[in-house]
Every structure is written in structure tokens, then in C-alpha cells.
């Protein structure tokens, strides 16, 4: 790793001004599990790191009304094991638990997993499915950004220079609704998603009221399969319907070929994972909430 200077501000405003001051020469370090890998491999070159370690208030999971608020520095393992999260959005716990290794999950943070904007990241699909938003601060003002508007491209987000993602806010999931996360990986541990799907279904009586299908690792950003999602609204659930929706999701996916899988294979995986997640989500939604 090249030399750099570490700044350890003790308040968020201080962190934002440091980021503004050093611009593209600075990066935020939270858990560091993505950043240090990039620095060690010289994928990025910077001269300043702004550590969030000494800033209070970013490490807790709280509930306000029906909302869950997760601080950006909450570790992936804390997310995976949080009873609060498990009760309301089990898919997020599962997504966190499926990541990397115990060591990395103890180090890595939810904020980092989102802000790094790696296309195969595990938490964003479940969060998009849940309709979550993030709180971004510039030190002087805060803004709320829906997760669905957060990503621009691989490693590109709406975060402006001087801005920090401080919280993830998960709204109430609602009754008769279930969210399921499915991921395909090439080995048991320490493996990135080759493809992933987070599916949300709300049922009303015998019908599906609405649904949302979010795809991971098959596009430059975690993407909502809009057409596939729309096919669910107001429909009578059936094997046939779910099969067609899964086909539609695969058609919408825009994967690339790389060492983990070809474009065609990823599309097939999306179809399989979508179908499985629809089946499971429907089952759980009719069983009463996630």
C-alpha cells in the first residue's frame, strides 16, 4: 500500500469538511474490507483516508415506529444476527450472513457494502426490495435517497464529494408481505454472488397485490426487474405465472460474462432464483408477514 494520511475526526461535520477539502484524493474508511483490497492492489490511488471510527452514533440498530434504522458502521455480522432486523426483514440477515467469511463480516459494515457499489453486493437487492432509503449528510444538511436511486454504475453512487452515508432506513414491510433473498455462489464461503434475486410479494385474498423483483450481479447496478415485477400485480398466483415472471426477469437482466459465469448462465440463474424466491415468498406471505 502507498503512503497516505489518516484523519480520525470525532464528528460527522469534521469528516465531511475533510472529504471536501481533499476531494478525489480522499476516501472514507469504515470496515476497510473493500478499500484496503483496492489500495493493496493499486486499483485506486489516494493520499487521505477519513476514518469514521471515532464518530459516535453510527453503530446502532434502532427502531422508530415501524422503521428500522441501521447506522452505517453496523457490521455485517451485527446485521446478520440482529433480532430486530430478523423479525422484520429476515432476507437482509440472510444476505448479510451469506457474505464472505466470519472475519470479514465482523469487519465490514452495512454502509460500506452499500457505498462501495459493487454490482454483486448482497445487501442492496434485499434493501431495494424492502423499499429502504439511505440518509446522506453533507455535515450541514441531510438528504434522504431511496435505495433505488442510489446507484449510478459499478462503484458509482449519488454521493457527492463531502457527503457521507450515515444510516439505512427500512420502512415497515407491512402485512401479508414477504421478502426472500436468493444467491448463487460457486463455493460455500468467501464467494461473491454469481447472480442474486430479492423478491417481494404482498398478497390480498387470493391475489397478489403487488410484487417487486430485484436482481443482483447481473447489471451495472442492483436493478429492479420492472416488467417482471409488474406482471405480478393483481394476478392469481400460480406455478405458471411465477415461471413466466422468472422468464421475464431473466430477459430483463443485463449480465456480463466474467470468470464466475457467462452472460447466458447468469440469465439462467436469474430465472431459477426468481422462480424459487417467488415460490418461497408467496408461501411465506400467505403464512403471514416476514
Amino acid at each position: 500500500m502507498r503512503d497516505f494520511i489518516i484523519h480520525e475526526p470525532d464528528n460527522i461535520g469534521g469528516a465531511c469538511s475533510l472529504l471536501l477539502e481533499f476531494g478525489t484524493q480522499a476516501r472514507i474508511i469504515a470496515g476497510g474490507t473493500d478499500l484496503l483490497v483496492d489500495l493493496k492492489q493499486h486499483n485506486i490511488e489516494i493520499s487521505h483516508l477519513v476514518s469514521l471510527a471515532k464518530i459516535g452514533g453510527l453503530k446502532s440498530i434502532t427502531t422508530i415506529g415501524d422503521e428500522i434504522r441501521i447506522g452505517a458502521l453496523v457490521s455485517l455480522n451485527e446485521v446478520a444476527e440482529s433480532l430486530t432486523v430478523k423479525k422484520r426483514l429476515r432476507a437482509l440477515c440472510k444476505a448479510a450472513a451469506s457474505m464472505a467469511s466470519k472475519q470479514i463480516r465482523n469487519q465490514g459494515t452495512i454502509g460500506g457494502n452499500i457505498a462501495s457499489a459493487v454490482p454483486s453486493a448482497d445487501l442492496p437487492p434485499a434493501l431495494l426490495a424492502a423499499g429502504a432509503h439511505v440518509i446522506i449528510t453533507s455535515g450541514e444538511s441531510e438528504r434522504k435517497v431511496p435505495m433505488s436511486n442510489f446507484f449510478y454504475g459499478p462503484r458509482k453512487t449519488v454521493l457527492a464529494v463531502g457527503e457521507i452515508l450515515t444510516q439505512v432506513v427500512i420502512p415497515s414491510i407491512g402485512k401479508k408481505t414477504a421478502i426472500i433473498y436468493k444467491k448463487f455462489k460457486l463455493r460455500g464461503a468467501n464467494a461473491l454472488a454469481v447472480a442474486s434475486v430479492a423478491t417481494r410479494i404482498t398478497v390480498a385474498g387470493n391475489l397478489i397485490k403487488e410484487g417487486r423483483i430485484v436482481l443482483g450481479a447481473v447489471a451495472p447496478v442492483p436493478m429492479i426487474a420492472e416488467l417482471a415485477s409488474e406482471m405480478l400485480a393483481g394476478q392469481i398466483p400460480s406455478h405458471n405465472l411465477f415461471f413466466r415472471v422468472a422468464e421475464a426477469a431473466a430477459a430483463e437482466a443485463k449480465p456480463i460474462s466474467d470468470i464466475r459465469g457467462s452472460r447466458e448462465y447468469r440469465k439462467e440463474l436469474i430465472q431459477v432464483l426468481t422462480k424459487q424466491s417467488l415460490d418461497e415468498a408467496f408461501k411465506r406471505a400467505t403464512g403471514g408477514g416476514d
Partner: protein
Amino acid sequence: MYRLITLNVNGDLRTVAVKPNTTLLDVIRDKLDLTGTKKGCGLGVCGACTVLVDGETMSSCLLLAANMEGKCITTIEGLEEKGKLSAVQKSFIHSGAIQCGYCTPGMVMSAKALIDKSPNPTEAVIKEALGGNLCRCTGYVKILDAVKNWKTYSELDEPEMKEYDLEDYKVVGKSLPRYDARDKVTGRAKYTADIVLPKMLHGKILHSTIPHGRIIRIDTSRAEALPGVKAVIIGKDVPDRQYGVSPPRYDEYVLAKDNVRYVGDEVAAVAAIDEETAERALELIEVEYEELPAVFDVYKAMEEGAPLLHERYPNNINTSVDHHFGDVDRGFQEADYIKEESFTGNFTQQAPLEPHASIGDWQDGLLILHSATQVPHYVHYMLANVFDMPLGKIKVIRPTVGGGFGGKAETTPLDLISCVLSKKTGCPVKMVYSRKEMFLHNRGRHKQYIKMKLGVKRNGEITAFESKIFLDGGAYTSFGIVTVYYAGSMIPTLYKIPNYKYTGRRVMTNKPACGAFRGHGSPQPRFAFECLLNMICDELSLNPVEVRRINSMEADYHTCNDLDIRSCRYKETLLQAVEESGFSEKYGQLNDGHGIGLASGGFVSGAGYTIYRGQVQQHSQKPREPFQKKSIFPHANAIIKISEDGTQAVLFIGAADIGQGSDTILPMIAAEALGLPADRVRIRSEDSDISPIDLGAYSSRITLMGGNAVKRAAEDVLAKLFPVAARLMNCSPEELKASDGFIFSDKDDTKSMEWAEAARKYFNDNSSLIGTGWYKPPEGLGGDYKGATVGTSPAYSFSTAICELNVDISTGKVDVKKFWDYHDCGTPVNPMSVHGQVEGAVVMTTGEALMEDMVYNDRGELVNPNLHEYLLMTIKDTPEIFSGIVDSYEEEGPYGAKEVGEGATVPILGAVAHAIKDATGVWITDLPITPEKILKALKENY
């Protein structure tokens, strides 16, 4: 830039100066000298650097030390209390969970964090907790056992002796824990990268960035001007002698003299005050290349007009083998059924958890090399050759080695460059490969393109077999000349094949060289052969067990390619594995993506001939001698010295323990032969000044060859001791026996004395009690054709593996459920070690079958030079494994022992492929068998 921080490490407050970019791992290792925490990948994948931070496991290579103030850090060194091991450490020792030991500290830390929170973890929870700790040796089976049963194991005062049924022996046949396990589980064991010498500098290599080219100009001036840089060397600074493995194919320079031939070729090197400075200096070296056309494909490389890598290898053919034994034309005419099929292997790499490391220390008139090597003697010989100096002026030290699997079976650029840099600077120079450099250097398994044709009678009896193999060898020869012969020679050792034709071509391409990897040359052809045999069984509706049985190799058989099989219990491995697994009831009968598959294998117990010809002498000074069908010098040599008080024996033998356990097996053999309890023999194997030559850990040779030398050294000790004891007991030396610390008369029960007392008396009158022993393979091994030496051995092992698995038909994902393996290793000297080798081989090779693959792009660059994307099996991917040993005795081996380490890999690829066929109905003939390939084949077939 530096700032003082205070860390709480193992309960002590330690103040150190760090830079902001210093990782916690580097502080622990370099500043606090707590070298138990290991560096395996540097990128948070392997888990070797796991420490506890406030009780939670973390990868210290991805933590900045500056961020760690105020946290409680625990390293492996912090687990002992006043010299007493923690429960989990004891459990690792007693369960046999430790082999090379390089993953052990990280593994133990993960286990400790787990059982501190949940003392009775389920298997699933253990696998989750240990999923981030890679192990390359054990197959995780005993690690899982150690964590699951930590209470039971830790409460044992003495390790439980799971004895094998060998009534005649006191030590041989006992499942003793490794002699070095305690050092490895406490972090005390010193690997090469852990060693610090006075005035030591750090070296790094500049690698070629292009696949093929001529070096026009190198400007090192900016690098030399960088403060902290002590030396920069390029091609002109290294000897003009080439090196390699086999003398007729020495084709590498220490640094490129003119041409570079692959991305990664060594162009220049730097020695500096620390690794970071050396790396900065590399960036300041300017190299101008004239890029030449490159070739990456085996078939294209052989075409007329293809870019030529070396003038001396026309058409890029490095080695050609054309063998024909018997008459295949007649054999195919006699066949009732003939099947031909093509198979493709994969580029896989040994990927030991410990990266290669060397410390060159060129002193006045003495060159000392510390090296993480499997073959200290061949490295020694190579230094003498390259630097043209007598072997006597060089000493090679092999510290604890963290796995090898063939990757450390040849002299590395680090071995040679560290010496050149040391000579130039007058300081010791340490050089350690990063994980990426491990992949750039490679020397992994050759990718083989295989065409096979097999003829059988209606009942499956083999009448003829023909094999044509092209091996992609990369840019240099390395071990390849041997590999291409092994790819052919091992096939007729398992089944009786009357007529056999083998055409082998090792082809050079602009990629890193391939070398020797566990099972050397034979796993991929064996995979192909076993698949082909199973295909024929399918097509003729024959039973794959019965077909193997009727073709089975037998004891005292002379193969068509002139190899002499002595002991052989192949049939027993087959039948016992079939019975234990219920294969016959399950095969073809399992549903829903379940399948079971069977394959067999075998290997040499040590190569019959040395790698270089003639005596131990500088290569340049040896007269060129014609090849003789005998070994000129002993392959293994041992000295046993008895302590002056008679209580302890110390065994000296230069055999390389790289994790396979020879530092335990050899003292056990010595103890048995001396008649002493196991704990009264220690071993010194690490220093060429102290211990005589053993050729090293390759060709699965140490138990048989080293063991024989040790046994003879012990017999030599007794031959000197018995006359003294006989005088003291008033009897004749001929009637004496030694066992369990006593010497006694065979004829008279009243005549007995303590071994130690007899030895003391010996010392009083004769000075030191020392015995020597040696082993040469039998003379005349092998036939009289070109290449007949490869495949010769004093003894052969046999094994059968059966694999049960599940395939998710919708994604192609394979879940390996269970393996059954029976091995004919002769007498198991230490059954726990035998099982450990088998379990490790099963998991390693299942990984090769399913996921390991080095992928190159069209510029010859490796796409996945890291453990994120070069996939090793984790504990979560590991099947349950049953390992059995058949009753067998090899006359040529010590106490009847032969090999297990390499042979255990050989049947695995075929067993996995067969099980996938049984599960899905499709054969996948190119490795690795990825989910994507399975799904594609399923779509094409249904």
C-alpha cells in the same frame, strides 16, 4: 509520518511506531515479533492472519494498525497460560488436525472465538465459523472433529492412541500426534518468512508485463537513487549458467538475459531496507521491450511459423514421448468393443498456504540459504551449479514448511535471486512471494489435452489401450520432461494392459511454466482412463466393479512398460470401498440428482532414480557418464546419535517435512527399530550441515526410502550396543532384543536391562554411540527404452475412491456428500497421518474436479491470480470422508510401509466425474466440472 500508537496485545500494552498504511498483521509480525499469525494471501481470503479483536475474529491483513488503539487484540501466542495450552489447542493436537501448521493459528483463533460463545456448536455452526479459514492439507475433517469434540480431546492427558491392529510393533501402527504439533499450535514454529537475521534486507522481483519480448533497455538509475535501496540487479548481474530441474533441459536464467517469455518472467530485482521500499523501487525501474508475437494455445504453438519460445525446442515441442509396448493393432483387433474419447484437464496450482520464501545469506566463503522447500538437496545442488561452487561451501536450511504439494519441489527464483542480492549487498536478503506472485510463478499442474482409445473383450477384459496427450507446459521446462513421461507410465500399473501405445508431447506456450503437482502428471490421464472405462461399462451394461476386478493388477507382476509391481492389494481396496459405501446397491439406483461414482488410482513410492545423474558433485566438474541402471549414491541417509546418558536418541536425516509428517514418521520408525518408546527419539532434519542427504519430499518417497535409511541406522546402533549389553548380562549379542526401553534376552527371561544403562556403559568405553544407515532403490529398475526410468519405484500404492453427491439440476451446482476411500499403503506407520493425507487429497482433488482453474486472457495474463477467484474448497464445501486402509505388507518398505501422500489424489477426479454422470446422465470430460458446464450439457442432452 510515523506515529506512536499503543496496542493492547495479549493483555500487554505495546507502544509501537507505525505509518498510517501499516496493517495490524505487519505490526504484530514485524514490530512485536509475534510471528504465529501468518500471511497467506494479504487480501482477507485465506484466514491465516485471523486474530481476535475484542473477542471477534478479524483478518489482520485488512486492518490498519492505527485504527486499533483501545481494542483488545489476541493472537495465537495469547492462548497459552503460563506454558499450559488452552483446551482448543490441545484438541487440535490430539485430534490430528495439524499438518503443515500454516493455517493452524488462524484456524485455532476462529475455533476459540466460536467455543467461547457457544461451547457445544453443531457441525453447521462450526463450518460457518471456520468458513473463512482455508486449509490445503487436512481436508478439514480432523479440524471439524477437533472443534466439535474439543472437550473430549482437551481432557485427555495423553493423546488417545487409536491403534492399528499390528501386534508385532510397539510404535509403528500407532496414531501418535505430530511431534511438531505443539510448536505449530502455539505459533512457536518458525517458517522462513518468520525468520529475522541481523542486518537483513528485503528483496522483490520485477516481473515482465508482456507475454513475449526482447529486452531492449533497462534503466535502474531512479530505483537505485531511492533512499533505502541497497542493490538493483538485472540480467547482466546474474551468472550465465542456466538452471532448471532436469540437466538436459536447464533453460532458465536467474534473471532474463535477453528475452521474456511470459507475463511474470523475472526481469530485475531490488534489495532494500524493507519490502515497501523494495516495491517502490520496482516501480522506478524502466524497461523497454521489443514485443514479439506470442502463442498461448498448444495446437497453434506446434504449427509451422508459430512464434518460437526457445531455439532449442523446434515447433515449441519441449519433449516428445513415443512409446509402444506389445502390439496395439493386434490388441484392438482382438477387442470386441473399442471406445475413443477426448478429455481436457485444467491448470491447477498447489497453492500451499505458505507462499514461497527464501533468505540468501552470502558470507565469506559460505553461502547459507533458508528456503521454504520440499527438496533441500536439489536446491543445494542447483546453487552449486548456478554459482559454480562446491556443495561443501553451501548450506541449505529448511525451516518449518507450510505445505508444498510439488510447488516447492524445485529451486525457485527467490532461492537464487536472494543469494545474488546477498552477495552484492553483504547482507542477508529475505524474499517472500505475494499470493499474486505465487500464481505468476506457477509451476502448477499441466493442462493436458487427452485422446484415449480403449479396446475390451465382451466381458470388459482390456486388450489394448492407446493414449495421445498434449501437455501445455508454459514457457520453461521446469519438471515438465518428467511430467510428460509420468502421464504415460503410470497407466499400466493399475490394470493389466497387454498392449499399450502412448504418444506424449509437452508443448511450450507464453504462459507461466507448469511443474510437478501431487500425483505428478498422472491424475488427469487417470481421470480420463477411469471415465473411459466407466463409459464402456455403461455402453456394454457391464458392472464397473467387476470389470476392474478382472483387469486388476496383482502382486509380483511385470507391466507391459517394464515396471515391477511387488505388493499389490488393489483388488482389496476396490472390494472394501464398494462394500463400505454400498456402491452396488446405490449405483444407477439413486434419484433426484443424487449419484455415486467410482474410480481407482495408484502411485510410486519414491522415484527409482535421482533427478540428476552421477555423484554428488558440482555439475560442471563431473565427467559425462553414460546412464547406469542403478543409483550412484544413496537416496536417503540417516544418522542416529544417542545422548551420552543413554536416554535419548537424536535422528539426523535431511528429509523435508512440509506438513505431510515425515518429522513424525521417521522418529517413529527409529523408535521401533531402536526399541525405545516414541518420545525418546527427536529429529533434526532442517540443516544440510547437520543432517545427511535425503532427496526430499517428492514422488511420495520419504516413508519408504527415508524410513529404510532410518531403520538401518537404528540397526547399526543396536549392532554396536548389543555386544556391550551382552557382556553386562552374560549372554551372546545374537540372543538380544530391544523393545520399549529395555534390552533383554530372547532365550532367558531373567536377563534384561535398561536400554539407557547399556548405552551409558557404551559411551564410557567407546565414546559416542552413533549409527548410520542409507537406502538405495534396487538396481536394474525399469526397461531399456528412452524414458524407462520415469515410473520406476521400489513399490507401488493402490487405492479406490467412491464419491456420493447431489447435483441441483436447475443450476448445475454440485454438493459432494460423502467419500469412501480405501488405500493400500502397506503397513500404516501412523494411521492417523494416513487418514489425514487421504482426507486432504480428497478435498484438494475434489476442488480440482469442480472449481480450481487458472484462466488466462488473450494477452497471456492470468485473470484470477488471487484466492478470491482461484477457488479452493472451504470447510463448507467439504464432504464427510471415510478413509480405510487395507491389510498389506511391502517387503521393500520399512516394516512393510509404502506411500499414501500423492497416490491418494489419483482416483478422485474420476470418482467425482462418474458420480456426476450417475446423478445427471451426462459425462463432463473437461475439467473443472463447473455448474455452468453441467447445466449446458443437461440442456444439450435433454
